[in-house]
């Protein structure tokens, strides 16, 4: 029996099926476009080529969405996205562009699943960082400036706690509490985004059961 709790909240993946759903696409693009772009750059593509390929992949996703059936047994959405990108990069190098890191040699093996893709780890790392950065941006909207600064100055900019507390007119305790609230919010936002993918998977499986 499908869990109704999940049915009431449309997951991102579902929302992406509707090309007119701007907020959903904004969220997707905000998080994933930079990861795609950075990954292309790391693989040696120029700024222009990386922009173009990122665009291509996003468009592929857009075209694939309406009929998309997510099969969790085949890996995560993120993994699928990465496969699109990896193939795009491989095509790019096949067309004759310089391959600074000589990566295309291993592409066939990776495709066949016969060896690990070393760049995959970078992709995951980039994704995690990007997700956090995005979540930080969203979290910021929830707090007043003082509380946010308590977090930013101490955690991000590593200034001494006492100095920042004095500057903001807070006790050390209050500052710690503020930091915690912000970090919790960031965690909650990023986890909620992540779980969207998984929930949809569960939803799908439930549908089929």
């Amino acid at each position, binding site marked *: 029996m499908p869990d109704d709790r999940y049915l009431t909240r449309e997951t991102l993946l579902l929302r992406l099926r509707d090309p007119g759903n701007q907020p959903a696409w904004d969220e997707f693009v905000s998080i994933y476009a930079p990861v795609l772009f950075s990954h292309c750059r790391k693989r040696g593509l120029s700024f222009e080529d990386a922009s173009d390929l990122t*665009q291509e992949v996003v468009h592929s996703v857009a075209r694939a969405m309406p009929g998309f059936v997510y099969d969790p047994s085949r890996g995560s959405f993120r993994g699928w996205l990465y496969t699109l990108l990896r193939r795009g990069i491989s095509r790019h190098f096949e067309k004759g562009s310089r391959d600074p890191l000589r990566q295309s040699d291993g592409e066939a093996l990776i495709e066949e699943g016969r060896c690990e893709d070393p760049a995959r780890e970078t992709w995951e790392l980039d994704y995690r960082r990007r997700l956090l950065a995005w979540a930080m941006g969203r979290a910021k909207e929830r707090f007043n400036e003082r509380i946010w600064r308590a977090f930013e100055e101490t*955690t991000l900019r590593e200034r001494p706690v006492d100095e920042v507390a004095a500057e903001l007119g807070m006790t050390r305790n209050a500052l710690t509490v503020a930091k915690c609230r912000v970090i919790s919010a960031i965690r909650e936002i990023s986890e909620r985004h992540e779980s969207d993918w998984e929930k949809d998977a569960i939803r799908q499986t439930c549908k089929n059961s």
Partner: protein
Amino acid sequence: MANDLIHEGPGPGSGPELSDSLLQEAFLAGEDPELTLFLASFDRFERVGGEPVSKDWRDCIAPPEAEGELGRIDGHVLLELIAEGGMAVVFRAEEQALERTVALKMLAPDLAQHPVARHRFLREAKAAAGLDHENALPVYRVGEVPLPHFTMRHVSGGTLQDRLDRDETLSTAEWFSLARQAGGALGAAHAVGLIHRDIKPANLLYEERGGRLWLADFGIAASVHDPGGNVDFVRGTPRYMSPEQARGETMDGRSDLFTLGAVLYRCVTGRDLVAGEKSGDVFASLLSTDFAALVSEVGTIPPPQRRILARLLASDPDDRFPDAAGLLSALETEEGANREIKSPSLRRRGVAITILSLVSVALLAAAPLIFRALRSAPGAAAAAPAPSLPEIRIEGLGGVYRDFASAFAAAPDGATLLLDGVFVARETCFGPEGVALTLRSAPGAHAVVVASVPDQHALFLRGRTELSDITFVRESGTGNVVPIVGIFGGDAFVRNCRFETVKPDGFLLGPSLSFTNLENAVIDRCVFRTRGRDAVGFGFNEGSPAMKVTVKDSIFLSDVAMARRIWGGQAGLSVHWEHSVVVADTLFLEHERNRSDLFSPLGFEMRRCAFDLAEGTLRFGNGHDPLVAGTLVEWQGDRNRHAGPSLRIDWTSSAESASRATVREISLGSPLAPPFRGAEVDPMIAPYVKRGLVPVSLDDLIDAIRRDPGFSDLVKETGQ
């Protein structure tokens, strides 16, 4: 470390810990300016999926209304197709309202659908319209309907290409005139943030009567504020592309200077800078050739033009003129010099003496630094007064030579040259290829070699080389970035030498020494005082062997102590330091790569050294992937001491500090307390004042370092 960051498990609430460092990294990654630019220009998906459009411009414009017309657009009658490129089409047209002939350029219809290409085309047109320079082809009007287009002055008469097809080369006067006009136009464009990116003879319109040059076709131009010029960047003509453009890296005005240099090279030699029929070959040459060196070897180019070209065609943008104004001022100087050289009365010897006395005056002005160096020269107990003219003797042979050129010509393989006096190099002295030479001060003497030539080496030695007891000084002050001494291809042993790069006003600049394509180099008991660039550089070309460099008992005072430049190949570098002192901003800099091969190995073995590094330990320039590079750097440290921040590795290309995880732990040893105090501050040392090193002079600095309790155990060990 990365594994715990990968989270693919199901369900909410089971996320990894959000550590401070993770948040910092995320924050920093988001601050990456390139990323910001990308996001700003990223095409939103909703704009894609328009109606399929015809690729033929004829379908997009209004039909012709009379015989001889090709069509009409926005109040213009198109009369003749002048040029058709991948991105745009150019017509000769008549502007009806004003009844004047114009050139009209229109964006290709399929690109007009692409919001990004469209936006850039129009922005470029608007920027070019804002240019008001007598050599920049004026843009009149910009329009968007039905296709993005703009109009420009129509110039009759051909292009520079037509001229070169007829006459192969230009006269010197014409060459300078062309360079000046093109430089002026570029300066105006760069001033408004516009990079041309496609300078070639076909884009230089040339009115032969009157010799007026027009720089046109900012066709794939880009504003510096927006790194992508167009959708398919490789539309620049490979033959006239700068190395950084070929690599797809961010370009700036200096890239235009390079391509202008390529055009000017063509104009004076009649040959293209880069040969090859296929793009691939052209790319490869572009990325691996040292054009500045190439230019100096072409005998048919008169020296003034050669000097200009060498500066324009430097592979590293930092080595070129910093901007068009720099080029213009050099042109002015050289054109003047050009006239002077023709004067027959100037005899060589007379010139040499005149120059020497001029330089002596300059040296006197820099007296405190230079003459102190002469007095307290390493190894010289009491310096004999320098003879009025320098002398070289070849050990075992008779004869006295007055300059390196003649001494080199006479020296057999393995010879020892004994130097005495002050040698002023007004141009590079090339050592004979493959000949082993030792250069050393004659007994009781202390030789000084002064590099008085702006952008060239004083000495370029091409065999196994030993240098001892000599002071090398760079004296001229035009922003040199070439070392005083270059050793190429043969092993190098540099002992008890001092390298100073100094301008008369006390400001130091330029590297000292470079080793290229050699296997073994030893630096022993040397002192380097340089500023602005690295003290010692290591160069690698395709086919060069792995290099091992040993540094012992030496002192480095510089911005960057060592740097590597790789022009080709993958040979590794291993660096062994023993009992030496480095006071610098950075210990080692890996320059931007000319060719994006796999990262070449880099090994450090540092023993009993004292470091004071203000900015960081290792720095990697653009083009290096931290992930790849990090795995190939090795560091072994033993009994070192440090006064500054313990470790930092910087990546110019991105703010990815995660790379630290892949480089093995680097320790600079235990802290070294700065104990130095002094009343006066030598201006050269001033930058290091903030870190507590305040000696009065170099010698005092050396003394103070040796007296430092933290350092004394090192000193004791060597018995000095």
